């Protein structure tokens, strides 16, 4: 690979652009593929360009035969995002764990004493109210949203915004009773049963988690399963 290609790729990644590196595995010829720049060095046919565009949309690295040539398409999409509502104890564990797992994490909490740099070193914090924060963050198909405050004033507006977005994972912490009450409120707010089925509540896989760090593991495990298209199963009980 030419160093210019490496640097161009790093620049596009820094600007959060969707880009793929396409390599002809036999000759080593390669070029970058973006929405406007279809790897011209490889002279792709429109059909081959569409195959690359599909891999980018599906966020999938793959060996693909492009115009009869064995090529490798390496997708460099911006990191998936995790929006955590509530700068609480569990968030202090979940934010760094999710960052290690590759998520760009934002913690939202308008309560000044909670969302502090001291408690969340190096984490992106938003002191806005959840409805405003969610509007600004605009969750997309590569975004997960988890509410952890237990406070309907904070959790409900975030869940409302999440349900109106295509977020790939929505989780809400709270006991079964809390969650039941929450579903009641959201139903009265006009959401259907199918809408509410998108919420993982209580959030997290049932691994018997007790400590904040363990609960963070269970939530991260569940959203990993959602991202990798597995049915995350909650054993009965």
């Amino acid at each position, binding site marked *: *690979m030419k160093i210019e290609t*490496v640097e161009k790729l790093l620049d596009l990644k820094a600007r959060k652009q969707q880009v793929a590196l396409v390599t002809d595995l036999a000759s080593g010829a390669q070029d970058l593929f973006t929405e406007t720049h279809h790897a011209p060095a490889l002279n792709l046919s429109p059909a081959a360009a569409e195959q690359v565009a599909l891999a980018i949309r599906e966020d999938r690295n793959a060996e693909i035969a492009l115009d009869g040539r064995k090529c490798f398409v390496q997708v460099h999409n911006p990191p998936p995002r995790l929006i955590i509502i509530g700068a609480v104890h569990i968030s202090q564990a979940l934010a760094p764990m999710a960052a290690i797992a590759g998520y760009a994490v934002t913690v939202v909490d308008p309560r000044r004493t909670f969302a502090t740099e001291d408690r969340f070193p190096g984490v992106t914090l938003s002191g806005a109210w959840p409805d405003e924060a969610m509007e600004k963050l605009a969750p997309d198909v590569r975004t997960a949203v988890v509410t952890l405050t237990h406070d309907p004033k904070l959790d409900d507006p975030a869940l409302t915004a999440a349900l109106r977005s295509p977020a790939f994972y929505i989780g809400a912490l709270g006991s079964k009773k809390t969650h039941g009450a929450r579903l009641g409120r959201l139903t009265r707010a006009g959401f259907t049963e199918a809408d509410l089925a998108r919420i993982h509540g209580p959030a997290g896989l049932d691994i018997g988690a007790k400590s904040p760090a363990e609960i963070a593991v269970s939530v991260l495990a569940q959203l990993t399963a959602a991202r990798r298209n597995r049915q995350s199963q909650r054993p009965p009980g």
Partner: protein
Amino acid sequence: MTEEQEVLEAAALWRREGKGVALATVTATWGSSPRPTGSQLVVSTDGKMLGSVSGGCIEGAVFKEAQEVIADGKPRLLDFGITNEQAWEVGLACGGKLQVFLERVD
């Protein structure tokens, strides 16, 4: 910074420092392979290594091959097809198979 970025940053930095640099990318896997497709390892002629293409099992072999790629500039597609019997010898104890594309950073 993600691991993906770290590897590419290192590739650019080491090359700009004038070292010989090669980049290895997992292009296909079969069976229980420890790192997913797209995982990368960057190596330099002065013995530096960052990232991974397996769980540490074939990095040594890739490193050795990388020195040849840096020398002749020809990209290579390497197959690590490992049966369970061979697994201990080559190092992929899991018995997985993978293909690695190895190229020089020019």
